[in-house]
């Protein structure tokens, strides 16, 4: 297993993931997805989390988001660690809404996912389970990386921001990858 470290990554990869594109792939493509692909964990930084008793609604709202298997609130860190069901993905916008409805302010979203590197309309993307594509935005060496790793299964960790990728509507999340490794 090859691990591309932070330095290597910063030098050669400015890999941005442009949101969650809930794009249904053809059934045949979905059926070909390797097992175990999907999001592994999403960590939401939650500001204002200084009233633990008030966090009851936050936890409940996060649990109601589709595909959520587990929620852990780390009050001292101001983090909500959300684990999806195996082989599924979470809608990042739904997580943010859940935090807001729960009474707090969502900040950055750290995503850990396992998927197959692919391409959509010339942009790098991560193919997750059930036809879900996690788009990788153009930029830096990401296209080159995609060329060298296309079709391989990788594990990425990235931090979401809400930059609006040009020409891509409705999924205003961009993830800056902090670690990247081949996952076989």
């Amino acid at each position, binding site marked *: 297993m090859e691990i591309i470290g932070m330095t290597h990554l910063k030098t050669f990869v400015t890999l941005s993931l442009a949101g969650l594109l809930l794009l249904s792939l053809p059934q045949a493509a979905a059926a070909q997805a390797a097992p175990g692909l999907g999001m592994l964990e999403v960590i939401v930084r939650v500001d204002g989390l200084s*009233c633990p008793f008030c966090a009851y609604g936050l936890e409940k709202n996060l649990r109601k988001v589709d595909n959520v298997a587990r929620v852990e609130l780390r009050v001292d860190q101001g983090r909500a660690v959300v684990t999806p069901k195996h082989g599924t993905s979470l809608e990042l916008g739904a997580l943010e809404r859940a935090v807001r409805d729960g009474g707090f302010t969502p900040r950055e979203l750290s995503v850990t996912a396992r998927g197959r590197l692919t391409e959509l309309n010339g942009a790098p993307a991560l193919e997750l389970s059930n036809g879900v594509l996690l788009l990788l935005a153009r930029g830096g060496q990401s296209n080159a990386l995609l060329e060298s790793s296309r079709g391989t299964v990788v594990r990425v960790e990235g931090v979401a921001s809400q930059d609006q990728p040009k020409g891509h509507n409705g999924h205003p999340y961009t993830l800056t990858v902090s670690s990247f490794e081949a996952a076989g």
Partner: protein
Amino acid sequence: MTSTLAGYVRVASRRFAGGVGMIGLLAVWPAPAAAQGPPINTDNAFVTGLNGAGFRTFFVTFDRNDLRLDGKKIDDPLDRRVRIRGQTFVLPYELVPNRLVVMGVLPYLDKALEMGASGNRQRVSVNGFGDLALAAKLGIYQSDRPNRTTRAALFGRLKLPTGPEDAVGPSGQPIPKALQLGTGSVDSSAGVVVTHSVGPLGLGAAAAYDFNTESDDFAFGDVLHYDVALGYRILPPIYRTYPAKQVNLYVEANGAWSRRDTLAGSRVPESGGWLFFLSPGIQFIPWASFLVEATYQVPVWQDLNGAQLGFEPRLKIGLRWLMY
């Protein structure tokens, strides 16, 4: 001044509140929307945590014993003693997530007046549900940063005359207004609350004004409330993973200023005034959705108009349960 309970009730029933007054009844009303978190007596600006129905109830007990005039105890030939016990039930509902909470508040009251010379004490008491109040709290400001938050909310309350107001004493005359379970009037309140919380420390301030209306030629005086609360989480020292057992300590200052009651358009001299409690309290949260709390309110300052019964310390014990 008459020396018998029947005579006293007969005289006091419509003339005035019998030296008790609306200001003495405030303890049975909760902070208008405090079902989702601390502090105990002061409202907070959170409007969260209640996607379903929450429930709060507390028991409060206090007495009014010594007759006071201009802030000093004076001899009371009737040796009047008023005892009030209340169990208040609050059912909130988060109508708009993180924005608007509405709720119903209903107290069950047990009030008693005892007076007369030793060996010839007479007593009149009533018990039952008091007036139903409908309340709402609207979040208007929220600034969140890591491990801290500052919030503000407006709140209002409409109290309906659902409680009985026709209880009579031994003579068959209605007992004093302040001893009735209901006021007979439609009253409203409006206020603002600010909460600032940093880690284990919480600060809160609230102010509200009660607009009391007339019923049967009588109106309790309007009341201005002002509350300040300081809370500190002593356990756990570092709150890591939610939920964890939690203990909070509080010190609150709870004040009220009441205008004089009015009878047939005239001010009642022996009513209204200033009242100020210092209220230490403790709160234990054993589970994510449940807490118990207690506070002991000491009347450190009471400047009541005319001759009125003074306030003894108030004890409040309650629980909050978030039901989903």
